[in-house]
């Protein structure tokens, strides 16, 4: 239990450290694969929802809901969002919020 707790604390510490380290170049790389489905700059031309210009807080909450499996309408997004930390998800939400629609 103590071992588990120390791992959790360590993970939280790493998460915090990483949040400070996320520079724009790193976020741009994180955002790279998003365009594969959501279109260049998040402006989807097809059936997948566009994400460019979405309000950052709402977008982050939606991505976190995907990650926690609490969005019943989801298909592939829960599988993808489980690969990202909360700090990364919030940085991605800010990134696409600042992209023009």
């Amino acid at each position, binding site marked *: 239990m103590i071992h588990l707790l120390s791992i959790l604390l360590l993970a939280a510490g790493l998460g915090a450290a990483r949040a400070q380290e996320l*520079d724009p*170049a*790193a976020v*741009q*790389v*994180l955002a*790279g*694969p998003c*365009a*594969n*489905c*959501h*279109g*260049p700059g998040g402006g*989807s*031309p*097809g*059936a*997948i929802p566009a994400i460019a210009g979405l309000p950052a807080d709402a977008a982050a909450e939606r991505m976190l809901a995907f990650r926690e499996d609490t969005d019943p309408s989801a*298909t*592939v997004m829960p*599988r*993808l*969002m*489980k*690969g*990202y930390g909360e700090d990364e998800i919030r940085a991605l939400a800010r990134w696409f919020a600042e992209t023009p629609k």
Partner: protein
Amino acid sequence: MNTTRREMLVAMGAGVLALPHVVRAQTGAHVVVVGGGFGGATAARYLRRADPGLRITLIEPQQRFATCPFSNLYLGGLRDWDSITHGYDGLRAAGIEVIHARAEDVDAAARSVTLSDGTRLGWDRLVLSPGIDFRWGALAGYDEAAAELAPHAWKAGPQTQLLRKQLEAMEDGGSFVMVVPEGAFRCPPGPYERASMVAHYFKTHKPRSKILILDSQDKFSKQPLFQQGWQAHYGEMIEWVGQSDDGLVAEVDAGTREAVTVFGTRHKADVLNVIPPQKAGVIAERAGVADQTGWVPVVAERFESTLVPGIHVLGDATIAAPMPKSGFCANAQAKVAAAAIAADLAGREPPPASFANTCYSLIAPGWGIAVAGVYRASDGKVVEVEGAGGVSPLDAGPEFRRAEADYGAGWYASICADIWGAA
């Protein structure tokens, strides 16, 4: 006079020594990209965005690029040819020089690439995204001439159109036999999506026909989802024979359209589709970046060759497992490589690598499935993020399958816009 001369010499010396570095750090560094597909065209585009000062040249033989993704839908009659081919006007408008020629040779020491039209281009960084080539003759009886009778259709183009014509010419009640190769091959779920799309075509036009898949593997990508979908949409039309059940083919006779297994069972086809054993595109061998496996080892953080520094290699040609050989992965790798190249040329530390993949397969109209993964780089290798990724749930209902069919089409529209779309 002496002072002026000495100053000049100093300036010249400094220029000779420092100029290449200065040029690379600012503008005018030349990046040559070989291959205008999912990896190469993406790399060219994202290099341009990362550093508007770079000179970027893309080498691609085809005026219009036919994509392997969605070519199975063309075979199934759900897509026309134009909708799966893409030109290079968008890349040109983005300020990328596109040369329609074949890259014939690479001189890594001289940092040059020689093209089929005789042009020799110098480069500061080279990106190879050559896709696959076939190991002709590795499967007895199957060479380039045999492929004109029993098409592989595993590079989208005339081969795909030939296979479609053969399916159209086949009588109702005929048999379509597909041979799945040994070793790593492009698009792990591709053969099974192809069987699905051929089944859709048969169900619609030739319902008494049969499909036989002779497989070198005992398990395949998204297998339970495919088999569930086959049962639901096509009943007993598709028969899959794994390696342990005598599925491994030792020899083909393209003239008689027969596939012969290692145990000597002969399967006669009306349309025979042989997917041959594969390796990295031949330019990888000529550049010295392929290893004894025929594929290209890379440093995952930059998708740079482990054998020849300065050459970055992307996509199906690379050894990138656990990332599959998919167009999505090639595109994701290209973005990481572009960021790393631009940072390196500007003297900055490359940002941390991050990749994802989603491969959609269509089993029937309105019935799609997907596999996804998230990846990072660690100690030169691609590592899959544990707890993420995976396949669509087996117990999902028709609404879920319909959504993934729609999203598959959405994915194709988005990634093609990302790569070949307007600037």
